[in-house]
């Protein structure tokens, strides 16, 4: 990937981060930490990779995306706004009674949301269903999903992992946002799900480990997944929870807490400074 493209994606991702924080701040509730950790993956998928059309969100042969870790909806809404599915000015409605942007993704209410999620473990199963439908219909669209690392403590994730490998769903690419923190703290202390790479390999998946904030690595892994036949791919994306905002990084306390006005101003200032440093518009 050339440096111009990387810079553009960095700017897109910073905008997604800003919008995620704008939503959470406006709602005075939500999940900033995990939203920030997946912003780069979402930027790559929505701005670079997926065959989607904001003017025709139900396009039959579109690539599908399922946010299995549905609580990171603020980042998904940011990505949908950045790609043009929803107006950027709607982001501040997050979690408000008069808005269509619920705390967790609602496919009936939000253009571009392919599956309602929020209850952990179910999104990857639904993504399997979509990938299977493509196989049954001989269609070549791909299905992407993002799981949380804490989410992998749900048994259903492993039922789904077995299924995807058994039915050779090579049109499915699952990212696992490995930021190492869940609500109650370090995932290895709460209920250690590691080693996740070895577990998915044992479930007969193609596993690729990357830095979740390196666009070259994201692109390379996505392309390798597309070239892999007969197996689904898990991209184990080592991420920093709260990525992009200094005081939120690697702090489980920001899993499900909104910034106050002062913190929000500082976070936006940091992201704006970053955007300016690479020549983008705020």
């Amino acid at each position: 990937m050339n440096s111009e493209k990387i810079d553009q994606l960095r700017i897109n991702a910073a905008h997604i981060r800003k919008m995620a924080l704008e939503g959470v701040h406006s709602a005075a509730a939500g999940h900033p930490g995990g939203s920030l950790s997946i912003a780069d993956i979402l930027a790559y998928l929505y701005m670079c990779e997926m065959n989607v059309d904001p003017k025709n969100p139900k396009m039959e042969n579109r690539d599908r995306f399922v946010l299995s870790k549905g609580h990171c909806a603020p980042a998904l809404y940011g990505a949908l706004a950045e790609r043009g599915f929803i107006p950027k000015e709607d982001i501040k409605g997050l979690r408000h009674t008069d808005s269509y942007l619920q705390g967790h993704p609602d496919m009936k209410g939000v253009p571009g949301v392919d599956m309602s999620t929020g209850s952990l473990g179910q999104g990857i199963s639904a993504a399997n269903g979509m990938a299977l439908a493509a196989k049954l219909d001989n269609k070549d669209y791909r299905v992407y999903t993002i799981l949380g690392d804490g989410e992998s403590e749900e048994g259903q994730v492993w039922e789904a992992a077995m299924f995807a490998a058994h039915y050779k769903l090579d049109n499915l690419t699952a990212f696992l946002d490995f930021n190492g923190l869940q609500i109650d703290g370090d995932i290895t202390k709460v209920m250690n799900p590691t080693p996740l790479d070895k577990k998915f390999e044992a479930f007969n998946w193609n596993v690729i480990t990357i830095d979740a904030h390196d666009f070259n690595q994201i692109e390379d892994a996505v392309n390798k997944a597309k070239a892999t036949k007969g197996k689904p791919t898990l991209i184990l994306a080592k991420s920093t929870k709260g990525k992009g905002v200094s005081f939120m990084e690697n702090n489980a306390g920001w899993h499900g807490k909104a910034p106050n006005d002062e913190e929000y101003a500082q976070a936006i200032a940091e992201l704006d400074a970053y955007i300016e440093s690479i020549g983008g518009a705020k």
Partner: protein
Amino acid sequence: MAEKMATREAYGKALVEFGANENIVVLDADLSKSTKTDGFKVTYPERFINMGIAEGNMMSTAAGLATCGKIVFASSFAMFAAGRAFEQVRNSIGYPHLNVKIGATHAGISVGEDGASHQCLEDIGIMRTIPGMVILNPADAVESRLAVKAAIDYNGPVYLRFGRLAVPTIFDENYTFEIGKGVKLSDGKDVTIIATGLLVPNAIEAAAALAEQGISARVVNMPTIKPIDRDIIIAAAKETGAIVTAEEHNVIGGLGSAVAEVLVEECPVPMLRVGTQDVFGRSGKPYELLELYGLDTKTIVEKAKAVISKK
């Protein structure tokens, strides 16, 4: 004696009969020989997906398939379809109102020898609380076939409840079925027996027994538990003044509750409920269990007489 066929058997045959529709996909969780989806598996192997023993995953996978235009039948025993996988049914299927048909077999105490762990007497109550969920509980093979057809033609989630036990076929080829409609099988003026599923033949027998004792009982078959046919209930209350419900389900949450809710709001009259009385079942021969737990003609007759005395 009428021909007998289990409603699960009729379900399996209907899937094959209507299975030429290429949008239909059938999922099963390692129970296809019991749920009778194995016929579809043989006829349309490319559209039969064995999920293994993983009912929660099955429901969410069904949801994903439905988002891509598939009409999905997800089959298991009622205990696991409605019980174990409740939250997947609620969040993956019910909440986005996806086109998934839950084919739940082995409902009720007539499962028999497998015992209480497999005798689901709560499923109607559980499923009834999910907004937008249609619940169909057919009484015989004819009605089961028509219920499957209606579920295919309806766009949205449907819970279909079938039994393991062979039951009399009571309807003929002229019988018509519409989601949300009860069917008056015979008229009467003293009491109305509203029955569903396996208890419908008992309701018909009970009306005949009551007639011999000079009591005129109306019989209403209620194959759709949700949306419940309010009009037929209100008419029965106004015209006969007393109601007995009969179902192979806990009296809490099922048909009896649904009917009571309508009566309380629209036209309160004396009412009694035939069903299991908030207890678990046990192993035994199906008809012995049905008698033991009061899911029989004799109990319907007794409750009908008792409810008339409350008028």
